[in-house]
């Protein structure tokens, strides 16, 4: 029963299965992103209070949602790595961190761009923005810790431990910042209250969220594949793979 799970521990198997998934995942990602972006940026109706400047939400919300979900993906990989001592899980963890960091950064940047015309300020210390900033630092911390170790295996373990510590802390941090914000900003302006959204805007938003999830998955698989190749570069199966590709290349050139 567990054999399918343990297959994930085999680099060549993971490499090829990731390749097959990517073959259809990448086109889907591109299509979803394109459709969602056009729908949201051009066809969804303007907001009654914010006009057209709210459209950045179609980038900001998906990026932030997937950035947070990505952390839990990373932490799960960390847990798998520690419990089953699976090197591939280490690779997954290592690959998640920069992708998550970039998505968080995109979320923060798009949030700032949204904030300027809407509230007149590039930055505001509200609960969600501040929590997103902390999430960014959590990602950066994982990357920094990984780079600080000379031994890759120990680096993976250390980052796995750190990501699990982060998992426990994220809800605590969010709740604390939320409480802190409500204490000092007595609901005079609700910056990120978007619970009442009309269907014509909700639908493209949901599509963009799905598109971003696909984007995360494809980036993760691509990153993992290149990481696998890098680590296993001296093994036979990689050598065969490279020679086969080189053979194809020269055959095409000739």
């Amino acid at each position: 029963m567990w054999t399918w799970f343990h297959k994930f521990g085999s680099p060549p198997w993971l490499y090829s299965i990731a390749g097959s998934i990517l073959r259809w995942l990448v086109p889907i990602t591109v299509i979803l992103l394109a459709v969602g972006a056009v729908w949201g940026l051009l066809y969804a109706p303007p907001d009654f209070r914010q006009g057209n400047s709210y459209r950045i939400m179609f980038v900001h919300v998906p990026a932030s949602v997937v950035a947070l979900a990505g952390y839990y993906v990373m932490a799960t990989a960390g847990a798998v790595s520690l419990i089953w001592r699976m090197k591939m899980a280490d690779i997954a963890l290592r690959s998640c961190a920069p992708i998550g960091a970039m998505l968080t950064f995109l979320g923060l940047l798009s949030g700032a761009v949204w904030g300027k015309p809407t509230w007149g300020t590039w930055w505001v210390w509200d609960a969600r923005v501040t929590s997103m900033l902390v999430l960014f630092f959590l990602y950066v911390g994982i990357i920094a810790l990984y780079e600080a170790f000379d031994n890759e295996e120990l680096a993976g373990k250390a980052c796995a431990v750190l990501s699990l510590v982060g998992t426990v802390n994220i809800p605590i941090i969010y709740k604390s910042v939320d409480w802190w914000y409500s204490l000092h900003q007595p609901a005079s302006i609700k910056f990120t209250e978007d619970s009442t959204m009309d269907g014509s805007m909700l639908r493209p938003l949901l599509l963009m969220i799905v598109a971003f999830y696909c984007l995360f998955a494809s980036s993760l698989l691509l990153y993992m594949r290149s990481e696998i190749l890098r680590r296993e570069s001296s093994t036979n199966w990689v050598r065969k793979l490279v020679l086969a590709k080189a053979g194809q290349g020269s055959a095409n050139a000739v």
Partner: protein
Amino acid sequence: MGRLLAACLRRQLLLAVRRPVEVVNPLVFFLLVVMLFPLGIGPDPRQLTEFAPAVLWIVALLATLLAVEGMFRGDFDDGTLEQLVLAPQPLFLPALTYVFAHWLLTGLPLTLLSPLFALMLQLPGKAIGTLMLSLLLGTAVLSLIGGIGAALTVGLKRGGILISLLIIPFYVPVLIFGSAAVQFAAAGNSAQPQLLVLGGMLSLAVALAPFAIAAGLRISVDAG
């Protein structure tokens, strides 16, 4: 088991007593930085009073951050940590004694000296009790969380600023509630909810941190 823990604790405290400079340094740092704030803000007592809770808490946080770096370094360098990791007893309890000793030598003195700094920053007298209680609980949490960072980085050559980068995000909730407790007390409101939350954080940290610290120590001993 109990004898091992007592021996560990005794060793930590003895080593610290032999090098009192390492205990005094964070406190001097605390004093110096507290002095910087009025110099930066201005001597107006009303302004200082407004910032006092936050400043006291932030400086306590930074002082603790400076001090946690060395929590395991001494015993890592001379091989004691390796022996401890290889021992058959579970690692999480001796790890806890390291944190406890560290807190006795940094967090506790900080808490006891805080009224002095509070006076320098014009904190209202009625808030000093809350200040001390919040620091007592909070610095313990900071030491526990800091211990995780220290355990993960003790084997690295260039630990330094990395530990701050790793731990400061986790310090955020402690700072929020600690500072709020003192602010509430200074405004004449009860700080009981905040203090209870800090107590809860401490309990959770005691429940979970020792295991993360033990895992980190095993990793670092393998790396070093």
